[in-house]
C-alpha cells in the first residue's frame, strides 16, 4: 500500500506539473461557462433593438387599460398614442421599421374586428402577440352588454382543455417541482462527477502505454510489484479526476447559483447524492481497470487496433440507452441498461434522477453486478498489466491478451 501511494502521488505530481493537463483542467469549465454565458450575452443586447413600437389610435378611451395589459404580459412593445388616420398610417409605415398601427374604434362592438397595419420588418409573432389587446376590449364589450361582474367573469374565463394524468398526486405544483429538483440536481452533479473522472481516467490508458513507450516500466518494476503500480495509477488518476471536479465546482457553481433562480446548494446536498456518488465511483473503477489493462497492451495510441479502440468507446455505450430511458425510466430498456456493467453507472444515475419511487430491488441487483464486475475487471486488468507492460514496442493481439488472462 505504501508503494501504491507513492505511485499515486507521483502520477498526481507529474500531471499537475504538466502544462497540457493544467490547460485541460481549466479549459472544460471555462468552455462550459462560455457556452452557457455567451448566448445570454447576445440575448441581452438584442432586447433593445427588437422592441416594437405600437401606435394606438384610441377612440374608445381604453389606452390606459391596454398599457396595463401590455406591461402585465411582458411584451416588448413601446405603446404610443396617436391620432393618425388609417389612410395616413400606410404612408407613415413605409418610413418606419418595426412598428405597427392599431385602430380601436366602434368596430370593436360592431363586428369585433379591428385593423392593424404593420411595417415590413417586424417580428413574425407580432400578429399573435397583438391578440392580447383583445382581452381589455372584450371586457368592455361585456360591460356594454350590462352583465353582472359574476356573469362577466364566467364568460371571460372561457373553456380550456388541460392535461390530466390518472395517478396525479395530491401534491401542489410547487411541491412536485421541489421533489423533482431534489433528484435532478444531485443526478446532474453525480453525472458530472462520473463524466469527469472517467475522462480523466482515460488518461490512465495514456499513462500505461507511455510507460511502455518510454521503456521505464522495468526500472519501476524493480522497486515494486505490477499490482502496486496499477493500483497507484488508478488511485492517482481518481484524485486527478476529483481535482477536475473541484475546479469545475469552484468555477461553475457560483455562476449557476447566481444565474439560476433555484437554490441549487439546498438540493445538492441531499442523502440521494451519496448513493449516486457511490455509483459514479464504481463506474470509474470499472473503466479505470479497463483503461489501465488496455493501455498496457498498447505501445502507442496511434497504432491502436480495432479491439482496443472498441474498448475505449465502452464508456459511451450508455448513450444508446439514454433515449429509451428518458421516455420510460422504468421500462425494459432502462432495466437492461442497469444490469450491463458498462452502461449501468450512467443509466442508474439517470434513472435515479428521473424516477420518483426508486426501484430498490433493481438498484441493488444493478449495484451487485457492478461491484462484481469491478472486482473481476480489476483482476483481469492486473493479469494483462503484469505481462503487457513489459512487452515493449508491440501491440498485443486479442488472442495474446486472452492467453495472458488464462495464464
Amino acid at each position, binding site marked *: 500500500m505504501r*508503494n501504491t501511494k*507513492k505511485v499515486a502521488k*507521483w502520477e498526481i*505530481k*507529474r500531471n499537475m*506539473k*504538466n502544462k497540457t493537463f493544467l490547460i485541460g483542467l481549466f479549459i472544460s469549465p471555462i468552455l462550459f461557462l462560455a457556452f452557457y454565458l455567451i448566448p445570454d450575452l447576445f440575448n441581452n443586447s438584442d432586447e433593445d433593438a427588437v422592441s416594437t413600437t405600437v401606435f394606438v389610435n384610441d377612440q374608445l378611451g381604453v389606452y390606459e387599460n391596454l398599457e396595463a395589459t401590455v406591461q402585465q404580459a411582458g411584451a416588448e412593445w413601446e405603446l404610443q398614442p396617436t391620432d393618425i388616420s388609417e389612410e395616413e398610417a400606410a404612408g407613415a409605415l413605409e418610413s418606419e421599421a418595426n412598428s405597427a398601427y392599431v385602430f380601436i374604434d366602434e368596430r370593436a362592438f360592431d363586428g369585433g374586428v379591428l385593423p392593424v397595419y404593420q411595417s415590413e420588418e417586424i417580428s413574425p409573432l407580432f400578429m399573435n402577440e397583438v391578440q392580447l389587446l383583445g382581452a381589455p376590449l372584450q371586457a368592455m364589450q361585456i360591460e356594454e352588454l350590462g352583465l353582472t361582474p359574476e356573469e362577466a367573469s364566467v364568460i371571460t374565463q372561457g373553456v380550456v382543455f388541460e392535461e390530466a394524468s390518472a395517478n396525479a398526486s395530491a401534491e401542489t405544483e410547487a411541491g412536485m417541482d421541489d421533489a423533482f429538483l431534489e433528484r435532478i440536481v444531485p443526478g446532474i452533479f453525480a453525472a458530472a462527477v462520473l463524466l469527469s473522472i472517467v475522462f480523466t481516467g482515460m488518461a490512465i490508458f495514456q499513462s500505461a502505454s*507511455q510507460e511502455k513507450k*518510454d*521503456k*521505464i516500466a*522495468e*526500472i*519501476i*518494476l*524493480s*522497486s*515494486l*510489484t505490477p499490482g502496486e503500480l496499477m493500483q497507484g495509477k488508478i488511485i492517482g488518476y481518481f484524485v486527478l479526476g476529483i481535482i477536475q471536479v473541484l475546479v469545475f465546482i469552484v468555477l461553475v457553481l457560483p455562476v449557476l447559483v447566481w444565474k439560476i433562480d433555484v437554490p441549487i446548494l439546498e438540493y445538492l446536498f441531499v442523502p440521494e447524492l451519496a448513493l449516486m456518488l457511490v455509483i459514479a465511483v464504481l463506474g470509474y473503477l470499472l473503466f479505470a481497470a479497463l483503461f489501465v489493462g488496455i493501455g498496457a497492451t498498447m505501445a502507442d495510441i496511434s497504432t491502436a487496433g480495432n479491439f482496443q479502440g472498441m474498448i475505449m468507446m465502452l464508456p459511451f455505450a450508455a448513450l444508446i440507452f439514454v433515449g429509451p430511458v428518458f421516455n420510460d425510466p422504468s421500462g425494459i430498456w432502462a432495466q437492461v441498461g442497469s444490469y450491463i456493467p458498462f452502461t449501468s453507472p450512467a443509466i442508474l444515475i439517470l434513472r435515479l434522477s428521473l424516477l420518483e419511487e426508486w426501484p430498490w430491488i433493481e438498484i441493488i441487483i444493478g449495484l451487485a453486478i457492478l461491484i462484481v464486475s469491478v472486482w473481476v475487471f480489476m483482476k483481469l486488468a492486473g493479469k494483462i498489466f503484469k505481462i503487457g507492460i*513489459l512487452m*515493449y514496442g508491440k501491440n498485443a493481439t486479442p488472442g495474446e491478451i486472452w492467453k495472458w488472462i488464462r495464464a
Partner: protein
Amino acid sequence: METMLTVENLGKSFKDKRIVSNISFEVKKGEIMALLGPNGAGKSTTIRNIMGIMYPDEGTITFRDKGKKDIPRNKIGYLPEERGLYKNVKVMDILLYLAELKDYPLDRAKERALELLKKFDLEGKDKVSVEELSKGMGQKVQFIAAILHEPELLILDEPFSGLDPVSQELFKNEIRGLAQNGTAILLSSHQMNLVEEMADRLFLIHRGTKVIYGPLDDVKKQYANFKCTIHGVNERSLLESLPEVERVEQKEETAVLYLSKDVQPATWLKNLPTQLDVQELSIDRISLHEIFIDIATDKNLLKREENLDA
C-alpha cells in the same frame, strides 16, 4: 566473502521453448561477476527472473537474508537492458521518485543526485526535462538512478550498449569503484573485451545453458590455449599430423592450428618439419573474444562439460 545472491538450477520456458535451464551461480560482496553470452542466450531472462519481473519455472534464487522470501528490492539497483525514462519530467524529479520507491531518504537522495550528476558531466542538468537530454545523457541518468540509493547488489544488463568510448570509460571506473566499496555487481554483456578488463569472475551462457563458470584468470589459463597461424600452401593432412595439434582451420593459404594446453611453444616451433611452407607464422593465445565467438557459432572448440568451480 559474503555471498549476496545465489542462483540455483534456474529454469524458465516460454510456451514450449526452453529459454534457460540449470543455471547456477553466486554473486559475492565486492566482486564483479559477468554474465556473458551472445544475443538471445538467456542473459536478460536470467536477470529478469532474479529481479522478480518473471517467475522461474524451476530453481531457487536466494538473497543474503535467507530467511526472507521477498526480493529485497530496496537493496538492489537495477539497470534493465530495455530502458528509458519518463519524457516530460525533470531529471531531478524522476531521480527522486525512483529513490523514493526504494525508500531512500529524500534529502540524502537529492544530495547524492547532485553529486553523481556532477561526476557524470551532467552538472546543472537536474532541472532539465528528460526529453531534452541526448541518448548518452539519458543513459547516464538511468545509471545514476540505479546506484543513487546505494544498493548492496547492483544488477546491470548490458550497461555499455550504445555508449561512446568516453562514457564507457566513465561507467567502467564507476562500476569498479562501487565494487571496491563493497557492492556486489552482476553485469551482463556481450562485449568480451570490456568484461575481460573488469570482471573478477564470469559465467558464460549459450542457448540458456552454462558453458563456462569461474574466475576470469582460471578461465583464461584453462581455455586460452596457444594457437599458431601459418601462411603458406600446406596439405591439411600434414598440418593435422603435427604434434600437439587439436584442431585445424584452413582457409585458402591460411591455416590456424589450435594447440593443446600443455604445449611448450619454443619446443613445438623447433620441431616443425622442414617441408612445411611458411610465408608467415605467428603464435599467440586464444583471446576470450575468440572463445566467445567460437561458442556463439557452435564450433565446439571447448568441451562443454568442462567446469571450473569458483
